[in-house]
């Protein structure tokens, strides 16, 4: 049996090795993604994002524990992809999410993989999508993807996940932060973590105000109230597990809403078309770049460096060669 077959049969070491092949974008990794794609598409992907220090990893620890021990219906396998940043200088990374996931380490139906961003800027690892697809194909029913500490622009997770949980914590910003575009817009569920800390109620209040303003505005635009998802706000304390059941229920409600209103289909379609677009961009760029002589390319870069021609003009010239 080769590695792909072994992984498909549920062999943990094979799954783990295959994830490395996918992460390193090797020919075997690419072949695995092609071969496993027809088997994927069944897992529920839950994204967990939010600022550094808001308690994402600790909350994921609790959430995965709750999902793995008591999922709706039969016992599901839970995969966790925990992303931390790569150093832009050395390319190395310190992946520390496991420190907070002590309760999951030896559970037979939980698999945690730490991933470094490897240059990706949207809050996810370059290969996060591929890694999720592998886990999906080898029968993980739930995949939790934890992003790097994210502020305002790292919103790639919303494209990848079916349900995105944004974790906030007290003391990280005022109500204007809540009104800015970006990370709060992608929330399907909001969690105010560290609910035992002073200021948690105030944080929840300003987030609720933003949610209400959003609802009122959409109401005026004539959107149908019944068909709209009302973003729930859950207070959690990941350290002692308070509120984790409510969080789990909020995620399942969102799943039911997606299924009832065609949202699942829409999200999967957007994701597929996104993946195709990305593959096309990478492929076309590689083909084009490989067809260019290095000295020609360098000469044009020199022109841009010297501010004689703009990058756009430079591209026009290169496309003509």
């Amino acid at each position: 049996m080769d590695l792909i077959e072994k992984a498909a049969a549920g062999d943990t070491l094979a799954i783990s090795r295959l994830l490395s092949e996918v992460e390193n974008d090797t020919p075997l990794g690419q072949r695995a993604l092609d071969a496993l794609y027809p088997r994927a598409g069944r897992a529920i992907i839950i994204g967990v994002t939010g600022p550094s220090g808001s308690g994402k990893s600790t909350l994921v620890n609790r959430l995965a524990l709750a999902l793995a021990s008591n999922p709706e219906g039969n016992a599901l396998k839970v995969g966790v992809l925990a992303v931390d940043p790569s150093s832009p200088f050395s390319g190395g990374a310190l992946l520390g999410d496991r420190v907070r996931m002590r309760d999951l380490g030896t559970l037979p139906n939980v698999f945690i993989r730490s991933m470094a961003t490897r240059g990706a800027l949207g809050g996810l690892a370059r290969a996060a999508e591929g890694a999720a697809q592998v886990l999906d194909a080898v029968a993980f029913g739930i995949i939790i993807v934890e992003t790097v500490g994210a502020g305002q622009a790292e919103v790639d997770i919303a494209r990848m996940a079916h349900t995105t949980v944004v974790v906030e914590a007290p003391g990280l910003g005022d109500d204007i932060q809540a009104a800015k575009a970006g990370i709060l817009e992608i929330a399907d569920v909001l969690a105010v973590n560290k609910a035992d800390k002073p200021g948690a109620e105030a944080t929840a209040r300003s987030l609720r105000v933003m949610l209400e303003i959003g609802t009122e505005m959409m109401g005026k635009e004539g959107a149908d109230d019944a068909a709209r998802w009302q973003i729930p706000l859950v207070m959690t304390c990941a350290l002692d597990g308070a509120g984790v059941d409510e969080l789990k229920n909020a995620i399942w409600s969102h799943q039911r809403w997606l299924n009832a209103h065609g949202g699942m289909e829409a999200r999967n379609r957007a994701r597929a078309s996104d993946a195709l677009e990305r593959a096309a961009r990478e492929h076309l760029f590689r083909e084009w770049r490989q067809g260019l002589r290095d000295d020609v390319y360098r000469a044009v870069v020199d022109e841009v460096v010297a501010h004689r021609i703009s990058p756009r003009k430079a591209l026009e010239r290169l496309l003509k060669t």
Partner: protein
Amino acid sequence: MPEKRIRVLIAKPGLDGHDRGAKVVARALRDAGMEVIYTGLRQTPEMIASAALQEDVDAVGLSILSGAHMSLVPRVLELLKANGQGEVCVFVGGIIPQEDAQVLLETGVSAVYGPGTPTTKVIADLRDALVAA
């Protein structure tokens, strides 16, 4: 472009709570371009082996100051082997008496580092062991 990176698990088995050494090594390996999975304090050999398996690491660094190395280290080696990861390079740092170090090296540990070892040595040894392999 993506490439293969050396992945190292740094773990502290046993009950001592002093993790400065482990953090220094983790940080140094990161700065040397490696991906370091740091697991924190008080790990059982089972937790360490399970993490090594799920993370598909090339090496495992164990930091032990408690004196329990003669029971903890062989147990980790045994579990790695049972999981099909017998080829993973295992190194140990901490307060390890000379004669114990000798025994550990004979049972399959690639290196034992005492206090004051320059991190550059750890990096160079790892590169030698992993790139040659």
